[in-house]
């Protein structure tokens, strides 16, 4: 087995990186892939709570890097999907506890064990971001259809080109088709015109994302919500499948009610 390392980055905070990492990892694992996700946000760990695995943490990423435990010991197995693992971030340390070469070494060891390594980058473009992309074969850049998120995504895409980690693939998160329709939100086409990169996913705004994070059960686990389907589609595209983008305009009241818990 030789894993593909995929890093999710954004520049701006709060655009949905952690949610996406959890859901893409869950979607890949639900398709029979062996997946390990790594929380790269040292000091501000959150991937554990989104995945509902916060009570199982014994060792973390920094413990592995500093040799206090073996890699296997820091890999927390998911409750629902036996082929999904999480390596949590350390909560009481900062980004300088890890270097880009540490990440490369760790991922090289892990590559033999799994099909996919999904890394959650912290916000920003400093050390944490550099750590998160060091081992990446592919970087997904998350944005929202909103000026500051698009601007920061552009900066990250430029940095990835400069670091020879490009071309980045874009995920547009929290798209509200009704707002786009009335001209009050940048459309997918607008964002692609501005950023000029390949698109790999469009996630519609979906209340179920909050419900799922409340419960620690990523919504890609159940196929009913639009956002969950959108994450499943990203997973399929990562696996090399040609999947058409969902028609978000056609979401009627009936579908909305079905999608809601």
């Amino acid at each position, binding site marked *: 087995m030789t894993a593909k390392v995929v890093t999710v980055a954004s520049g701006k905070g709060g655009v949905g990186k952690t949610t996406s990492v959890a859901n893409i990892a869950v979607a890949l694992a639900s398709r029979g892939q062996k997946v390990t996700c790594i929380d790269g946000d040292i000091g501000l760990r959150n991937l554990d709570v989104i995945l509902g695995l916060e009570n199982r943490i014994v060792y973390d990423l920094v413990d592995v890097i500093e040799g206090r435990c073996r890699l296997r010991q820091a890999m927390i197995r998911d409750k629902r999907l036996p082929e999904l693992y999480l390596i949590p971030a350390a909560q009481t340390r900062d980004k300088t506890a890890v270097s880009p070469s540490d990440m490369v070494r760790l991922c090289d060891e892990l590559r033999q064990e799994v099909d996919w390594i999904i890394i959650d980058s912290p916000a920003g473009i400093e050390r944490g971001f550099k750590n998160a992309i060091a081992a990446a074969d592919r970087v997904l850049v998350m944005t929202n259809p909103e000026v500051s998120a698009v601007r920061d995504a552009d900066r990250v895409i430029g940095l990835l080109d400069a670091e020879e980690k490009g071309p980045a693939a874009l995920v547009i998160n929290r798209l509200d088709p009704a707002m786009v329709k009335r*001209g009050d939100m940048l459309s997918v086409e607008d964002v692609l015109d501005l950023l*000029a990169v390949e698109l790999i996913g469009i996630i519609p705004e979906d209340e179920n994302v909050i419900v799922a994070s409340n419960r620690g059960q990523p919504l890609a686990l159940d196929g009913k919500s639009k956002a969950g389907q959108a994450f499943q589609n990203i997973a399929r595209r990562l696996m090399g499948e040609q999947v058409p983008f969902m028609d978000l305009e056609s979401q009627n009241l009936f579908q909305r009610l079905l999608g809601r818990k």
Partner: protein
Amino acid sequence: MMAFLFGRKKSANSAKERLQLVLIHDRTDMTSAELNSLKDDLIETISRHIEIDPTAVTINVAQDGRSQRLVADIPLRTLGHRRGRESGRAVG
């Protein structure tokens, strides 16, 4: 509704137009003041060799995918024996 009544531009269009300018400056690390100073230098240099109409010179950063292109339109001043208006276009 208010926007409709007053014929105001859709906010998504404002967002796109503003971002287009911001991204050009972010990517080239050049402010519009610096661009203007480049334009002045360009006019001065070209004027030493050929007569141009300095008021009609335009200089812009155009986007070509993720790469930027400096596009200058420099109309030449017509001499007596020339017919019509000629313009030189420099792309760099």
